[in-house]
């Protein structure tokens, strides 16, 4: 009950005119940041952090968290329109979002994406409001073994999804793992696979690979197909929003499942990216329209977007209560808190009630404001697709180059992006799926690190992955996901045998 009272006080703080203004400003800036691939939420927040030092801490954190929401919303726009994910967690959105845009359903896809984002974030905020203290203790139970189990589950629920032959899927995934291994080996502290090139110290950044593989690769493909930019016939009025909304309630099961996956992955420090992949993977398995996934199925947009936002929002909880950021953006926000003299940790909720509940209230309001802002812009975004390809392609190229450059302020990365573009084109032409490759680049080194940390702790015994209830459950879920099709087949056979007998 006390929580509810605190929350209403929080609303009173968040609803002050100055704070509402700050909120809208933050959302708009965030969307712009989200649209520019590579700039990303973390960089955006970092650049704008000093702007907020003249504000009271509560207004400042409202503005920064609104930039964060805005960036989360914005990441979906380029994924759907141009097949260029602006943020790691938008990759799964491209799988069905981009085909939808090509079929002239960009408006529907954007509406579905924004609405799902809102639903996911809203669900996570409600959860934060109600069970914050409880959840913090759960996060503490996550050591390296539990973390590895979560990554394992993410990989397993995604394997076998593509329609390509399993050999190609595994080959693509292995290339991804190999790329993820380049750079510093965080466990032994020595360099590997850099062949003396200091440019490779940092390994292959995920964003550069993705901008190249998806963005540049797509432009090359379109050029080959005669400069036609499909999707020009997208409806560009607001009625598309209402029509899509009529459809959405049908997918409530997918939404709810994605919310739960997202919250869970956000609290456990796995984060939004595995959440979006896992949610997409599971939705594809479970949905009756599963076979249609990847060809422009609206459910394939809802699942990853909902989960990514639920995770992105839930990730703020470990930051506030444990001082451990669940995402790079949360890490920058953490730096902000310290500058304002707020010490994140177990006592923040006790000592800084006004701040914490002001922030939580602003999550409710910020997301609502964000949804309204981006939905009213749907026709504008969709209209971008009407611009002739010969004009838009150079613009996208420039955008990609800026994005790749701004990741590490390095021109080497821009060259790297172009190389990835050619690789992406080659892989697409030869029918190798890109998704497993990307998944392996994103999660490969994290999974490896967690795996090796676990084995260091257990002195090499694999038993650590089944050493307690939590880790065993996640591992077994992973194994079930991996062998799901085999299990399903066996089950159907048993039933038919029983029926004939």
């Amino acid at each position: 009950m006390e929580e509810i009272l605190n929350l209403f006080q929080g609303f009173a703080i968040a609803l002050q005119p100055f704070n509402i203004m700050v909120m809208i400003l933050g959302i708009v800036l965030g969307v712009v940041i989200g649209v520019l691939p590579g700039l990303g939420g973390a960089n955006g927040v970092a650049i704008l952090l000093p702007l907020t030092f003249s504000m009271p801490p509560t207004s400042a954190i409202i503005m920064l968290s609104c930039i964060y929401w805005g960036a989360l919303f914005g990441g979906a726009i380029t994924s759907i329109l141009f097949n260029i994910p602006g943020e790691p967690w938008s990759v799964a959105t491209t799988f069905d979002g981009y085909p939808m845009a090509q079929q002239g359903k960009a408006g529907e896809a954007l509406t579905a994406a924004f609405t799902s984002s809102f639903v996911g974030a809203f669900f996570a905020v409600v959860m934060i409001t109600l069970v914050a203290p409880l959840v913090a203790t759960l996060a503490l139970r996550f050591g390296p073994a539990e973390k590895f189990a979560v990554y394992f589950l993410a990989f397993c629920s995604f394997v076998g999804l593509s329609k390509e032959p399993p050999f190609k899927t595994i080959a693509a995934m292995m290339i991804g793992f190999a790329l993820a291994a380049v750079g510093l080996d965080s466990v032994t502290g020595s360099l590997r696979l850099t062949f003396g090139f200091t440019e490779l110290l940092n390994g292959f950044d995920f964003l550069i690979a993705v901008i190249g593989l998806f963005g540049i690769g797509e432009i090359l493909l379109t050029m080959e197909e005669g400069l036609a930019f499909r999707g020009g016939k997208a409806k560009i009025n607001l009625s598309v929003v209402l029509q899509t909304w009529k459809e959405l309630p049908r997918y409530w099961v997918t939404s709810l499942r994605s919310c739960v996956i997202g919250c869970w992955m956000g609290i456990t420090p796995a984060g939004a990216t595995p959440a979006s992949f896992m949610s997409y993977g599971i939705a594809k398995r479970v949905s009756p329209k599963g076979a249609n996934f990847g060809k422009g199925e609206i459910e394939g947009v809802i699942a990853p977007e909902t989960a990514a936002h639920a995770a992105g929002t839930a990730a703020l909880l470990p930051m506030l209560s444990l001082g451990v950021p669940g995402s790079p953006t949360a890490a920058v926000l953490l730096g902000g808190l310290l500058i304002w003299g707020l010490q994140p940790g177990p006592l923040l909720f006790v000592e800084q009630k006004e701040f914490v509940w002001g922030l939580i209230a602003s999550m409710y309001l910020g997301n609502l404001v964000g949804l309204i802002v981006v939905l009213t812009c749907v026709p504008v975004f969709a209209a971008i697709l009407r611009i002739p390809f010969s004009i838009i392609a150079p613009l996208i190229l420039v955008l990609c180059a800026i994005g790749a450059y701004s990741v590490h302020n390095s021109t080497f990365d821009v060259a790297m992006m172009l190389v990835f573009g050619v690789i992406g084109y080659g892989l697409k032409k030869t029918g190798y799926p890109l998704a497993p490759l990307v998944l392996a680049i994103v999660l490969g080194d994290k999974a490896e690190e967690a795996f090796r940390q676990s084995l260091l702790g257990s002195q090499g015994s694999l038993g650590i992955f089944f050493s307690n209830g939590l880790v065993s459950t996640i591992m077994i879920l992973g194994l079930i996901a991996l062998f799901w099709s085999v299990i399903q087949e066996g089950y159907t056979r048993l039933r038919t045998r029983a029926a004939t007998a």
Partner: protein
Amino acid sequence: MKRTVLHYTIGAAVAASLGGFATMASAAWEPTRPVEFIIPAGTGGGADQMARTIQGIVTKHSLMKQPMVVINKSGGAGGEGFLDLKSSANNPHKIIITLSNLFTTPLATGIPFNWKDLTPVAMLALDEFVLWVNAEKPYKNVKDYIDAVKAAPAGTIKMGGTGSKQEDQIITVAMEKATGTKFTYIPYKGGGEVAVQLVGNHVDSTVNNPIEAVAQWRGGKLRPLCVFDSKRMSYDEQVFEGKGWKDIPTCKSEGLDIEYLMLRGIFMSPKATKDQVDYYVDLFKKVRETPEWKDFMKTGAFNTTFLVGAEYAKWVETEEKRHETLMKEADFLAKSN
């Protein structure tokens, strides 16, 4: 009288604009475009927090006419950031904050970098290291803990730390040598994560910096055993149950004769002129005078030693030799070296 002053001012302005580069070089130097402040570590860590605090202070108090942009270049244990600065000779608009990876990264990875490639500016502070255990555990002092480590089968006691072959692991190896014990060292990405792993009992102890673990100490989740310094920390504000940083004994007094402090210092790009170095020294002197900086020093229980010029360079040189010896003893040097 007034007119003379005005004439003089106008005259000076005209002279400056006509004189171009020649005049500007002789006048006190000032940045003419945004200054890049490189952090050779990831977001959220100790160096990152300090750099972002400095950026905040500089912006809030308008200490610089040009904006300061903070950039994380953490690749290859910070090697990315150091190499970037090394290749920016004659660009006075780039500075870098360092931690011990200034020494450890080139030694462990063999990348072509040495601190002498850069221009030293100032030592801002030294970061302390504290031996932490989980508050639920029965160890009340260093002896209790070391006895427990000795009693356990070799290698079953886990020490969590930031990075591999870096300061945390160097201290761990020094502890093993001093006590004849064996820890299993588990490297994590950042100090905050290490502290939480200790709270969750996934490791048995850590050597976190004060700022990385203070929140958990205040929350009663962690217990400090000793500080790896020659004297106690000077901050006497209470943190938990009536105890403050000042009440933590030195490791030496507890029978663990190890001292280790980490540099939080500033370097700038190679071939910087004296004017340019002086500008930044002056800037950081102003930063140190602000209440925000003093608060930050207090929260993180920093050792506030401030050194510039030859003294600073000498300190760094001594530390470099020490790290080389320490890392050689621990067999952490890159194979190619």
